[in-house]
């Protein structure tokens, strides 16, 4: 019902390194903090001190235990809008409130025309939309559109709040439409992947997979020290009995 641009000049998005994310939630709260006073203001919190605290968040982190051929362990998985090229949340929107920007590919919701019908949250396969009950409108990751072009910010801070905050450096922001960008390079080098690629929504955000721990093990198969006779302690003292200067 709402059309997508045929192409976008840029494909701005995030690259999230699952090998490094420790699940600290810095991206989660910095996102909340920025956006509750920014473009999406406010991100309402219901029952904030009660039995069922429930607010609107544009980014969440989930933790899973995984065991498969490639990886066994715990993965911290940050989840926010992936700014899909074929964004079902946009095409399903009856009012045009959900739209994908032609210049940079960011998917936004216009709160003035959103009627809160929630069709987009049903359509989104990633569960990345958040309904603000109080405001009656849908909210979502804006890639901090009010930061990344913000001329009142120093150049180096024109990046999404989650990337600015991330302590481990697990998050990067850039143009994934430009094969030479740092983010595209890291996707190339590390086998970055689309979340649920088989669904065909062509998410712009990419995830870098956790590396196998065995990849990091030093090779230790060096020749053993020449064998000497005696007990381990005799061998040790024989070896240590050389000229050592203080």
């Amino acid at each position, binding site marked *: 019902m709402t059309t997508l*641009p045929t192409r976008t000049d840029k494909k701005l998005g995030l690259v999230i390194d699952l*090998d*490094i994310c*420790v*699940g*600290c*939630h*810095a*991206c*989660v*709260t*910095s996102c*909340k*903090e920025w956006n*509750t*006073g920014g*473009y999406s*203001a*406010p991100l*309402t*919190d*219901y*029952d*904030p*001190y*009660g*039995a069922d*605290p429930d*607010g609107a968040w544009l980014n969440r982190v989930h933790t899973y235990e995984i065991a498969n051929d490639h990886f066994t362990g*715990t993965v911290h998985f940050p989840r926010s809008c992936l700014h899909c090229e074929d964004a079902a949340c946009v095409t399903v929107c009856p009012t*045009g409130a959900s739209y994908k920007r032609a210049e940079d590919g960011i998917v936004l919701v216009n709160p*003035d025309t959103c009627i809160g019908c929630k069709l987009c949250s049903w359509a989104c396969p990633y569960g990345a939309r958040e309904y603000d009950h109080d405001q009656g409108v849908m909210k979502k990751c804006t890639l901090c*559109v*009010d930061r990344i*072009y*913000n*001329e009142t*910010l120093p150049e180096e*801070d024109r990046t999404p709040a989650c990337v*600015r*905050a*991330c*302590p*481990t*450096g*697990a998050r990067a922001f850039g143009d994934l439409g430009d094969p030479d960008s740092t983010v595209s390079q890291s996707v190339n080098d590390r086998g970055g992947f689309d979340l649920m690629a088989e669904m065909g929504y062509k998410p712009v955000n990419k995830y870098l997979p956790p590396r196998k*721990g065995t990849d*990091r*093990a*030093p090779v*230790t198969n060096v020749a053993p*020290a020449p064998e000497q006779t005696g007990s381990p302690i005799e061998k*040790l*003292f024989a*070896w*240590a*009995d050389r*000229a*050592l200067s*203080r």
Partner: protein
Amino acid sequence: MPPDPQIALSTPVGDSVKQTTCYMCACRCGIDVHLKDGPDGKPRVRYIEGNRAHPVNKGVLCGKGSAGIMQHYSPARLRAPMKRVGPRGSGQFEEISWDEALEIATGWLAPIRKTDPKRLAFFTGRDQSQSLTGFWAMQYGTPNFAAHGGFCSVNMAAGGLYTFGGAFWEFGDPDWDYTKYFMLFGVAEDHASNPIKIGIGKLKKRGAKVVSINPVRTGYNAVADEWVGIRPGTDGLFVGALIHELFRTRQIDLDYLVRYTNAPWLVIEAPGAADDGLFARDADGNPMVWDKATDAFGSGKAADIQPSLSGTHTLPDGRSARPVFELMAERYLGADYTPEAVEERTGVPAEQMRKIAAELAHVAFREEIVLDRPWTDWAGRKHDTMIGRPVSMHAMRGISAHSNGFQTCRMIHILQILLGSIDCPGGFRYKPPYPKQTPPNLLPHGAPGQIQPEMPLGGPHLGFPHGPEHLLIDADGTPSRLDKGFSWDAPISAHGLMHMVINNAAKKDPYSIDVLFMYMANMAWNSSMNVGGTLEALTATDDTGAYVIPKIIYSDAYYSETVPFADLILPDTTYLERWDCISLLDRPISEPDMVADAIRHPVVQPDRDVRGFQEVLIELGARLHLPGFINADGTPKFPGGYPDYITNHQRKPGIGPLAGWRGENADKACVGDPNPDQLDRYIENGAYFGLKLDPGHAYFRHANRGYLDWAIEKGIRLSPEPTIFQLYSEPMQKFRLAAQGHGDRQPPDRARARIEAHFDPLPFWYPPFEEQLVEGFPLHAITQRPMHMYHSWGSQNAWLRQITAANRLYVHTSVGRDLGVQDDDWVWLSSHLGRVKCQVRLMEGVNRHTVWTWNAIGKRRGAWGLDGDAPENTEGFLLNHLISELLPKGGGGYRYSNSDPLTGQAAWFDLRVKIEKAESGGTEPLFEPLGHASQPPSPDKLAYGAEWKEPAE
């Protein structure tokens, strides 16, 4: 297609930015606080982000720091000073003025000081102003002062300082830029925050290997390349096996040992003699070595000798002595520490231990780093390069919170030293003012003769005893301190034993007190062992109906579980409203390459009648006429309050709380006259000061002539002598000799065997005490805080509690299967002290013999501004109810504290439990709700930021 809506892309973040220091945990990151006027025209906090220039966090900010807004505007904040008007625990208070509050406090404290100052016990929690609070307590004259270190990480501090003059946590860091192999021992999610996250990110990007040794695979341990899911309390066996392998395969940095350690020093072998096990010393008191160059005895402190590392040598007096290295080799090559011997107890396969030892040695010796950086060693010899062994380690609570933590921590340092990886490129690096001497030349004060009416104590409370002569006990051995610190129960308790204060006071053991004065420690809930017993102690009455602890003064910013149990409440500010001083005299924020300190300053003004605790303490000091807080004429010495103190207090001539911009012209660093404009300079510089080290001073600082001389000049080091690593710790042997009957200071008979066994001068492993004393509790139980919360503070934060509002008991899938429980089923968890009912969650990434949970999520109804039916109250639970502050009776019937026998460190993680399926739900124990009539109701809805919404175009 209609055109896209026009949106405002360049709205300024706020009206102003102020830079200060975070306090959402203990990391002390630099923050930029963006302020924007609210509808009332008053500035409100719009956004908090990391200060890019700051040495601690370099611009990033964690999940807690980024939720600071909700901490600042928490409905749990206290509003005004209060005095209790109902019984303790009722929460019935009356708001009073600050003048009345301080008059009451003065009225309680002044008479004690005139008669018996030790009847005040002053203990602070997670505060970062211990140089001020300790100084205040010294001037008051009570020996009963400490902060929370005794129940946090004193084993790490003491283990490191007695061994190599530094320590894990904030006294040093892995060399994140050069390390190739990083081992993380027992590091919970909350220790530390941004620095370790930045570091791990660097290592992972560079392809360094990260090995985690932890019963639980979450957080940092989840991203490790290799997870060693060890059984709690057995790390000493694991490390011992690694050391065994290094000795067996002869992969040890002998040159490093000879240069920097006491490995060649000769130990007297004369069983039964008063100096058995002490170092053989020459006439000048120097430790002796056998010098192969001259075939004669030499001084272990001399340069250019060729000391022998093995062999029995006959001393001039005819007795024999052997080098430390030989004693160490015998211990660790012995049968107790083979990988096979320890694999069952640790749960770590022998093969894995051998592989890790081989990898450590490989990286240390075959991937060494050579920096072309000239430096001069302690003896004046010039070197063209710095050789690095790029193996580094970090360890925290999982090591320290056991009754074998001190010796285990020492063993980890031994491992580092054998690999030659302390303060070398790629290794573990000191942060100035470390290294100190081993142990530091700082002795505890508060012996009976030092406690006099109306007299200061004569020195700082906390220090590092070198032997029994430094214990704080009277002629009968009775402890001088209420917490029994520096007594035979805990001889080297360098941070005190805050976890024993309340219960000892109620039992009048060793004596009763009149006033308990606490700051920022949730001792009536998650910071105490045995919560029920602690609450009984806080409310116990004598025959006349009077409270056994007669007066309790408490300062906190929030309505915690502890507030209702105090008689007088001094409400603190939030971290955004206060002055603070993060001082080199206390817990500095230095980086390995930089001496640094910092301040907090008010970036917003309080909207209520609260005052920063330090401000109040200084005024109280003046009202009590404490020396150091008044002028000769009796007028207050710091009429300008805390900023006045920070600027003008001098601990020694030229040395004050802050190191930056000292001197008349603000051009002196570290040492210089007070500068009235100092705080303005800090504020201009982003609330911190940093002095970069000369690159030639970057490594080997324990023996780097340039650094040692520079550090003395800067007032951060006392001795020009190098710091010599104490593989073999002679102070331990002195305590052991006393236990064997030598010397005039003798332990009570009940303590002899305990002292003799545990004060081993060479690190060794022994089973944690609780499991030695109880049966029928097959599982270990431990806790950690999630990364997004810090101690008790998180649950009042509307954003953070949406991430975690209830805790579960995490159990291994196989344990759950055997028990027949699934996620969220209710179980009883029991210990020798009691039981709690809680819900389980099954997971694979936990040691099979271990259960764990998030600490301090469980809250008591009525506290923290939470509704009664909040999940924190109805599902949340604490393991504290299962942990006894006293050990079960051992032989002889005396009940020692549940602590490390050397340092008194609280042994939280020694807990043993059993688990049974519960028939019905509901968390237990469920304490009666605390009264909270003095607090405003919490809002049903938050729409923070709505006031700044751009109007629609």
